[in-house]
């Protein structure tokens, strides 16, 4: 049975497309410094929520961005009013909000916890002022420390994001960042190697050779350091770039990786409902216009065939380091893992990038480091074009 992808979503993502400033590496859907658009946005979100037709009880809610905490307290209240009406949260829900260190204040934390937010994800990126400047972040090291400490007083589920391989970054800066996060007692850590995306200032700086990519080996050893430091501090390395203390994995993100369905609202937001992947228009102003006109915010949609779904399930499932159980895979997709993985899977097993133990297939350590090179062949069916020489 392939019910998984037709189940009514138990999760929802809300995209808040505002930041006070666009960081030089960031290509997310957002507009910087446009407070004036927030009221229209809140109205638009409410309209989009209305398209649900009825209240949909959910288990996980994730407010991402952009910077959700860029909204004022009254604006946040208005947003949660809409959400509570259309997406009532069930008992034992997880509600995450992304936040910027310089937005954190007791008043905001008060409001968020009042509105049943039980997980905060702080965009720290680094605790080092030089690195923060290199990354074009708008906050200081002090704000990083203060915001984590303050948040810890209000919540027992605090997540932070850290970037490595920033321009000019050394191994020791990175090691200090990791240790600082551990010492501050956060429950969840996401570590991202800096990437250069088209359309960002860093991208053009890179083209003009004003900045440089880190060496592959340096990046690798930073990634290794993250794994070593965090796992020995008791974190579980449960997804390629995510680490959690036991019991503190991000349930919402697990929904994505396990091929489950979810709602999504806001510009650029992507949902997976009834076997269909849809992405809203990425332009905030277009999104607003469409919602005002009562037309659909969707810009792209793709109906997944059974096999496509199975392939996604395989790739995104393997990003979880626990791997995939053969039985689960079959239950969720209707296919056997071997038939979907085919020759590529056999090759990767042989090369030692994947391993099978008991009833589970997972990435090996070697496989993890080069895992992006594995996905294309698993995601797209092999064809007969390859020469067997």
């Amino acid at each position, binding site marked *: 049975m392939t019910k998984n992808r037709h189940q009514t979503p138990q999760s929802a993502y809300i*995209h808040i497309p505002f930041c006070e400033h666009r960081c030089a590496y960031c290509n997310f859907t957002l507009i910087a410094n446009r407070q004036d658009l927030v009221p229209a946005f809140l109205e638009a979100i409410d309209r989009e929520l209305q398209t649900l037709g009825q209240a949909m009880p959910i288990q996980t809610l994730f407010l991402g961005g952009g910077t959700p905490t860029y909204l004022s307290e009254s604006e946040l209240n208005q947003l949660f009013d809409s959400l509570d009406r259309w997406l009532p949260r069930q008992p034992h829900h997880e509600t995450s909000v992304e936040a910027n260190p310089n937005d954190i204040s007791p008043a905001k934390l008060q409001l968020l916890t009042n509105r049943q937010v039980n997980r905060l994800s702080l965009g720290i990126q680094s605790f080092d002022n030089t690195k923060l400047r290199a990354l074009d972040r708008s906050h200081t090291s002090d704000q990083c420390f203060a915001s984590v400490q303050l948040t810890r007083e209000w919540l027992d589920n605090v997540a932070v994001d850290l970037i490595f391989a920033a321009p000019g970054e050394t191994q020791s800066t990175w090691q200090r960042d990791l240790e600082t996060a551990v010492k501050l007692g956060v429950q969840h850590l996401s*570590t991202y190697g800096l990437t250069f995306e088209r359309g960002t200032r860093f991208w053009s700086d890179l083209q003009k050779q004003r900045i440089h990519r880190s060496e592959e080996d340096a990046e690798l050893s930073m990634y290794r350091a993250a794994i070593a430091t965090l796992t020995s501090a008791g974190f579980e390395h449960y997804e390629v770039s995510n680490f959690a203390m036991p019991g503190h994995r991000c349930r919402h993100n697990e929904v994505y990786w396990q091929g489950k369905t979810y709602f999504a609202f806001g510009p650029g937001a992507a949902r997976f409902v009834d076997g269909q992947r849809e992405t809203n228009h990425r332009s905030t102003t277009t999104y607003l216009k469409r919602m005002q006109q009562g037309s659909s915010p969707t810009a792209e949609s793709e109906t997944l065939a059974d096999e496509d779904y199975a392939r996604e399930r395989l790739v995104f499932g393997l990003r979880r380091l626990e791997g995939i159980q053969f039985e689960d895979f079959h239950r969720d997709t209707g296919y056997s893992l071997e038939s979907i993985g085919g020759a590529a899977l056999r090759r990767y097993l042989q090369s030692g990038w994947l391993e099978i133990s008991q009833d589970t297939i997972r990435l090996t350590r070697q496989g993890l480091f080069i895992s992006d090179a594995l996905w294309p062949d698993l995601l797209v069916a092999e064809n007969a074009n390859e020469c067997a*020489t």
Partner: protein
Amino acid sequence: MTHAACKHIRNFSIVAHIDHGKSTLADRLLEATGTITQREMKEQILDDMELERERGITIKARTVAMRYRRGKDEFELNLIDTPGHVDFHYEVSRALTCCEGALLLADAFQGVEAQTVANGYAAMEHDLTIIPVINKIDLSHARVDEVIEEMEQSLAIDPDEVVKVSAKTGIGAKELLDAIVDRVPPPTGDPDAELQAMVFDSHYDKFRGTIMYVRVMNGTVNKGDKVRLMRAGTNHDCIELGQFRPLRTPCEKLYAGQVGYLICNIKSIDDVHIGDTVCLAKSADLVKPLPGYKAPKRMVYCGLFPSDGQDFEELRDALGKLSINDPSFEFEPESSEALGFGFRCGFLGLLHMEIVQQRLEQESDVDLVQTAPNVTYEIVTNNGETLEIHRPQEVPDSGQIQEFRQPIVRVNLVQPTEYIGAVMKLCQDRRGTLVRTEYLSSTRAMLTYELPLAEVIYDLHDKLKSATRGYGTMDYEVIGYRPGDLVRMDILVNGKRVDALSIICNRHDADRRGRAVCKKLKSEIDRHMFEVAVQAAIGSRIIARETVPAMRKNVTAKCYGGDISRKKKLWAKQKEGKKRMKSIGQVDIPQKAFMAVLDTGEEK
């Protein structure tokens, strides 16, 4: 004996070194005769193929009929355009067969160049009346007297016969027309004899079938006649005939001496051979075919493979279509372990190869992998057999080779005297033998060398240009095969020989080239999840090695809800890109890499 009907006909070509103004001059003549009004004048009307426009060179012979009125006489002047590049020598020769005269054009500033000499000789060999013309006399730095001296020195031109024109301003156009009328003899055929017409070109028209370009040598062909293509032995109804003025203009008949076209409803291109003779079907037994052209010899071969194996048939169709309009290009199926099924294609030279490839890309959307071009070699085996080698893979084990021969060309290089030293070094480095040095004037000289064709085609032209600040020009002709100290060098990727990467080279260059190719391949091959060894070998002896280190880290950070569709697209695209590569064992080799073997390892 000139028949009365032919007395007013003049058939001529313009031959020149590239850029000396052939096309511009043709435009002026069309204008001066009123064949085309100034308003209609698209610049350089004869270069109508898109590619030719792009490259500013004429590739295929064109023809146009002009009416020129002088006093109470009206003349029919047929201009047959010729290509200017050395690869297309044989086309020049085809065009010259249809003419009685040739305008030998030289640039008043550039002077006599290598192809001026080559084309001048060709016109003399065809016994044509030559009208020497100096063009661009409007240039303030024109050096007319010196160029006349150069013409005299190199081609024994009589200085008094030189006509001075500016194709740009039109100065001298009238005088030139008069010279054509007065000096070029009228054709000698007999309109009342049995029909003999020479097919000197053809092109394929979607709607009308094959359009044959003919010069009528004898007799008359009328609309509605049943004609025979003598070589194919097939009969056809002549449903339309006419002349290019410059657009296709039908008429009732073409007679001896005239140049025009025939449309005979021929859908199968295999029936039309360039150089064939057209006669009337009913009198075929009475007519002897005209001496045809020697089929041009293909000197350069390369493999063309569809990058997606499924496009094989499509590629075959596309090549077939191209060869309709370009009989000098040939292809036959070949298969390679590395590249799968494709075609071995023969070309007249490197430019010809580039042009065919570009046309393929424009006219079909098959993605191509091209292997490095090589010349045709000859091998005499121990049991006395002579093999023609079109691809390096065909070279037998060295134990079986008695003699390994390569094509040798005679190259004429014309340059200002101060560059003689640099040019000589260039030729010596390529194992050239100096034949002679000839001073065209006090400032310009022509060197003649014998060189292996393989050394000439790849980059001699570029090297000459940079050694002479652009002033040097060259031209060459094949003079035969000679034994050389040649070896086949193989390339191994992770221990596997990649057949499509083998090359033939001089033994003394093998080490240097082996190193260069390995280095180049290293830079072309992406890191894999394992180490990739690239080696060059002669027989079982490894002469060079490079290693592409294994990929160490390739893992993206984020992958959340919104990233899924994006990542999927990205990975699908990567997969598509990989499909376009060729995998040898587990190693993906990008298509560009198959040209890497051209890297000679010389200092740039």
